[in-house]
């Protein structure tokens, strides 16, 4: 037995991981039940930053991620959009990643069109699309948006879009929301937008788990709210759903919490594997001493 675990084939570990993720997915999918979430301060601050806005305030949502990280960031994109639309804010979508526009399309199709049919393109929400240049894009639009964005994502002249009339730069938005899977993302928004204009630009963000520790140094002055990975999404989702979605929310607004089930079992499996590996390690050392 000892020898079996000592030389454990990694395919057994892969199988265990597969089982520990698929069973909770099945159970959560079947029962619809999720674990309770207790929002932490950063999720509450993110929620508060949006709650403090008034109806009609313009907000910029920069979707800087791709399908690879959709599993982690999709739920917060949905929750951000749902929250802003429920508050009656004016939504301006953009992307620093080439497939960001597809992420924007997804959220428009999933949230705005079915649940907010009264919202009109060009009046209540607009997608100005992707521009290459990473932080170079931020650096330009932070003072003059029209230098880079002359049309929206569909090719419509930006001057013909009613809701763009009062928007000349990022400084005209009441809040910037960034969903980031890496470079270019939240760090660049902090460095090139918030840092030079701390009194004019306010940023909250959602990011992948690996990015979160790197963004903590910017909290709270440059980054008052941060949703870290699926846990952050689940906490924020709870705050939004509790206030706006009523007693029987649509399952699409519970995705973050649903994905916490597989995460719990996967984390427990990793802990068990580490403990098992250390038991083997010390057992082997003891054998050597004998």
């Amino acid at each position, binding site marked *: 037995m000892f020898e079996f675990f000592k030389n454990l084939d*990694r395919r057994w*570990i*892969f199988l*265990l*991981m*597969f089982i520990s*993720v698929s069973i909770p997915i099945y159970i959560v999918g079947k029962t619809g039940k999720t*674990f*309770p*979430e*207790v929002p*932490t*301060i950063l999720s509450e601050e993110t929620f508060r930053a949006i709650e403090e806005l008034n109806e009609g305030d313009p907000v910029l949502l920069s979707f800087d991620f*791709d*399908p*690879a990280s*959709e*599993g982690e960031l999709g739920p917060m994109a949905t929750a951000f959009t749902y929250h802003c639309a429920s508050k009656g804010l004016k939504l301006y979508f953009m992307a620093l990643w080439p*497939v960001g*526009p*597809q992420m924007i*399309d997804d959220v428009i199709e999933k949230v705005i069109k079915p649940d907010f049919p009264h919202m009109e393109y060009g009046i209540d929400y607009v997608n100005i699309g992707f*521009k*290459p*240049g990473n932080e*170079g*894009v931020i*650096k*330009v639009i932070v*003072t*003059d948006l029209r*230098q*880079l964005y002359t049309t929206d994502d*569909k*090719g*419509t002249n930006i001057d013909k879009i009613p809701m763009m009339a009062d928007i000349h730069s990022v400084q005209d938005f009441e809040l910037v929301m960034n969903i980031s899977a890496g470079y270019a993302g939240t760090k660049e928004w902090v460095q090139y937008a918030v840092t*030079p204009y701390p009194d004019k630009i306010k940023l909250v963000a959602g990011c992948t*788990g690996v990015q*979160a*520790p*790197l963004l*903590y*140094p910017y*909290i709270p002055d440059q980054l008052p709210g941060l949703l870290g990975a699926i*846990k952050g999404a689940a906490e924020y989702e709870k705050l939004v759903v509790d206030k706006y979605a009523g007693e029987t929310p649509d399952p699409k607004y519970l995705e973050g919490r649903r994905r*916490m089930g597989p*995460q*719990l079992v*996967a*984390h*427990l*499996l*990793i*802990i068990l*594997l*580490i403990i*098992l*590996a*250390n038991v083997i*390690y010390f057992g082997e050392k003891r054998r050597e001493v004998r």
Partner: protein
Amino acid sequence: MKRTVPLIITALGGFVLIVAYFIPATQNWGEVAAIWFDILASIAFVLGGGNLIRIHLKKVSNKGAGWGYSLITIVAFLATLVVGLGKIGVHPSALYPNFPLSGEYRELGSPFWWLYEYAFKPLTATMFAMLAFYIASAAFRAFRAKNIEAILLLSTAFIILLGRTFAGVFLTSWMPDFLSGLRIENLTIYIMSVFNTAGNRAIMIGIALGIASTSLKVLLGVDRSYLGTGEK
């Protein structure tokens, strides 16, 4: 000449951005430089595509190791490029019905949309999802409590792993209020906002100082390694 012109462009671009940051009256110089950067970034896509084709064609023609994958890369790249740029299967925009290329390149049901939805999206999501399997395997093989530092690392990892799920709340919710700081979810926040922040800030300041020194070397022409060796 081949080296002098890039050196002058680099120095000019760098110093303009520095001056523009510190002197408000010259702010628009920085904007102009940033726009040039964005234009170059767009052109870099073309260069990147060309380079990709060159490298993989070379591999295919030499029948190097894994040349079959290179062939798939070339075919996938060209197919996506042709359907995307040519807007194949896309209907003209309602605003400009007489212009066949006025439609959206990612129109629902178009070949480009199909490639994105049924090839790119599942493939990239699968690659990312596989991380969980490799992390579990690596955790089993690498994490050993060999010394004090490793024990500290392991304990921190356990607290964070538990604290990022409901298990953290479940395991320590019995603790009385005066010990609430020791609950796993609160320990997680403490570790992230104190130890992690302090460590990361120190690293970031160190990196920033390093970048400032390296940038000055590049701008003053002391470090020319980015220009290459000049050999073909």
